[in-house]
């Protein structure tokens, strides 16, 4: 209402989108003015990225319209939306850049690739023009440098230079700060403010609340596919935003089985691996469910893979049941008594082209064979046991796991470890893509494992699950455990606060 001056507006009106009948967006209105930085917030699965993908033309909307400067558009492809002046810098910068070409070529990629372009390249003037654009955002790298030699933050800036060269009017920055250091983040904020000054509307997606209040003018919060609020920054505070993101009626019943907590079964000291696991210490006891919560990119998956030997650790020690564990490969980890139910179920947890039977017996092939020959009877017996135990719904034991539902696939991914002597179970986002009924089955299975004296590590970004299930909650942020709560000590707000605040809050 206030900005009818000379600014133009981007309006998305009553956008709805469903995937296979499941609504991802419900009648969302979204408005961005030119010359503002607009934060788009929401928990995972709230619909932010779907909305942005519709805006950038990657998805088609089911209903509704998009208006830019009083022109109405339907975007069927990313090039449509670029023509309307909307550009997107995705989190995965490498997918948008050609690594073995120079910075200049990358900046003018669309122009060079255009079929109407000139047949001959003038390298001199190309580099000159690129230099001009780069200096606009204060980037001092040589336009002749190859993109593959740049740092991640420089690559991001090259992408921003590209959209300047394309005369973008509205820009989507999809979690640009997630992989950046604090310095790099500040540099990026400076550039964002520059974009704003030159009249570009910036849509800024992030999980880190302090950043929002640093640079943004307005805030839109989404939850469960709906827009909850759009407000000027001055009218909001961090607590209000968190409440809006989580909603009020979020309580859910979790079957929590009582288990006796015993001696430590997993002891991790000073574990480091690459940039994502930067010094993790923790102890898990028998019968204890320890949840590790953190936002996407906090390093949870990386931690679970290092603990399982799937990725190498740089430093640190791991003990299982008092014995030092050698973690050079997953097969070492299994020997040591660790089992992993990975996040990427269909790619890593099960073999979709193999039967339920063969999946369930995979880790225990040795114990069901004699002199190398498999006992078919024993194999089937054990598999039938697991199917009955876990309530796996399958038409037959020889059904391919590809044809099972997500929840039943997950049960197979869990069930295959139950025949091993594992002491420690690592669950990485086990409820992802699993329906409600199967979810509580999975919680019950995890509870039972704890009752049997196993140590459970439950890595998740679903705060409610951590609160409902865990005896202890560790919060992971930027590769470190930054906070620990006992059961009942923390609220969702606390968890989200520590998970998104970042380490600068703790100095």
């Amino acid at each position: 209402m206030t900005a009818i001056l000379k600014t133009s507006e981007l309006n998305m009106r009553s956008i709805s989108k469903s995937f296979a009948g499941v609504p991802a967006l419900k009648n969302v209105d979204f408005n961005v003015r030119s010359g503002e930085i607009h934060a788009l917030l929401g928990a995972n699965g709230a619909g932010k990225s779907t909305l942005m993908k519709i805006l950038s033309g990657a998805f088609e909307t089911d209903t509704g319209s998009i208006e830019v400067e009083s022109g109405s558009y339907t975007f069927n492809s990313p090039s449509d939306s670029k023509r309307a002046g909307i550009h997107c810098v995705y989190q995965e910068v490498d997918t948008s850049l050609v690594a073995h070409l120079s910075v200049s070529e990358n900046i003018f990629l669309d122009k060079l690739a255009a079929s109407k372009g000139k047949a001959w390249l003038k390298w001199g003037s190309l580099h000159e023009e690129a230099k001009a654009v780069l200096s606009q955002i204060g980037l001092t790298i040589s336009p002749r440098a190859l993109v593959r030699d740049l740092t991640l933050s420089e690559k991001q800036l090259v992408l921003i230079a590209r959209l300047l060269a394309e005369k973008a009017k509205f820009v989507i920055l999809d979690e640009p700060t997630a992989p950046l250091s604090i310095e790099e983040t500040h540099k990026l904020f400076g550039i964002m403010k520059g974009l704003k000054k030159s009249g570009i509307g910036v849509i800024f997606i992030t999980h880190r609340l302090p950043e929002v209040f640093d640079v943004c003018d307005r805030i839109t919060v989404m939850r469960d596919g709906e827009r909850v609020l759009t407000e000027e920054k001055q009218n909001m505070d961090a607590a209000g935003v968190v409440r809006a993101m989580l909603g009020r009626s979020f309580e859910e019943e979790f079957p929590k089985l009582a288990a006796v907590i015993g001696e430590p079964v997993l002891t991790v000291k000073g574990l480091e691996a690459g940039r994502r696991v930067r010094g993790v210490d923790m102890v898990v006891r028998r019968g204890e469910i320890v949840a590790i919560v953190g936002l996407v990119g906090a390093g949870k998956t990386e931690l679970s893979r290092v603990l399982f030997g799937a990725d190498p650790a740089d430093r640190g020690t791991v003990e299982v049941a008092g014995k030092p564990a050698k973690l050079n490969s997953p097969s070492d980890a299994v020997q040591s008594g660790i089992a992993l139910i990975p996040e990427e179920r269909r790619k890593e947890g099960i073999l979709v082209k193999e039967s339920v039977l063969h999946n369930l017996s995979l880790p225990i092939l040795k114990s069901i064979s004699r002199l190398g020959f498999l006992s078919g009877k024993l194999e089937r017996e054990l598999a039938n046991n697991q199917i009955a135990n876990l309530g796996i719904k399958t038409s037959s034991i020889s059904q391919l796991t590809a044809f099972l539902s997500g929840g039943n696939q997950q049960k197979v991914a869990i069930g295959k470890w139950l025949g091993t002597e594992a002491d420690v179970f690592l669950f990485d986002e086990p409820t992802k893509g699993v329906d409600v009924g199967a979810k509580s089955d999975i919680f019950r299975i995890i509870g039972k494992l704890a009752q049997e004296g196993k140590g459970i590590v439950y890595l998740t970004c679903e705060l409610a699950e951590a609160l409902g299930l865990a005896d202890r909650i560790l919060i992971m942020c930027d590769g470190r455990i930054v906070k620990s709560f006992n059961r009942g000590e923390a609220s969702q707000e606390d968890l989200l606060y520590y998970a998104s605040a970042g380490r600068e809050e703790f100095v």
Partner: protein
Amino acid sequence: MKNKLMPFTFKYGALIFIGLVILFFSMKSEYFFTYSNLTDILRSISIVTFVAIGVTISLTVDGFDLSVGATVSLSTVVTATLMVWYEMPLAVVLIVPIVVGALVGLLNALLIVKIRIPDLLATLAVMYIVGGIHKTYTKGYSIYSNMPLQDGTTAPGVMNKDFLWIGQGKLLGVPFPVILMLLAVIGAHIFFKYTRWGRQMIMTGGNEEAARLSGLKVKRVRTLAYVASGVFASIGGILFASRIGSGQIDAGAPMLMESVAAVFVGYSVFAAGRPNIIGTFFGAVLMGVLVNGMTMMNVQYYTTDIIKGGVLVLALAITFIHLNRRKA
């Protein structure tokens, strides 16, 4: 009606096709469907089947071994020279080429598993190298009993009688190579169906990362698969030497395509849609029947390649149409 007919065609189509081909040739020529001709067909495919079993193993772990043809050539001349040049006892003559085949497999595994060169490129390079080695080793000459040597003398040794029996002899009226082939087919089938290591190979090929995250030592499994591929190729080479009674240069060159064709025709047998030993065997049988029958009908030798290629395309088309439909 149609829903039932289609899966049936996919499942038994290949076998019915083989049956029809046999029926066709039997009607065309009275000599075709005789005991001596049928055993002749089996004998003619025995060498290719050994090589094809190796290819099946490498494909099972989702790899590919293009070097098998060159390995056959190398193994053939090594076998022959051990007798003709060095007069070695039979045991050495049999063991050394197999060790050589295993070494070629290890080299492949080193390049593919350790250095991570894509399988096709690595084995293509190894094929080149091994092909060069076997010609360098023999200086480009084929090896035969008492062959003249470059210094003007003749080679001291002859092809061992017992050795020649392996490729040419008969046991209870069945050519010995056929018995060996059937034993290998049954053995390999049992290996994949009933042993832990076979299962590990299948699972590794199904999804290497998932298999690894289930605790399998996938690198070791893949290495063993390439070694096995090399060993089976070298056995093919030994059989070739004993069958021909000499060590021919480049003997194995045509083996690569023929064995690969057999394996891929095998994909369509029982609608397996994946490499499998029984399918490979029937694939080899089909190819053998086609060559034999067409030769009887005086089809020009090179024309049979066109027919064989056509059959391969047909089998692949059926398999992949079926697989893609199942996915959808």
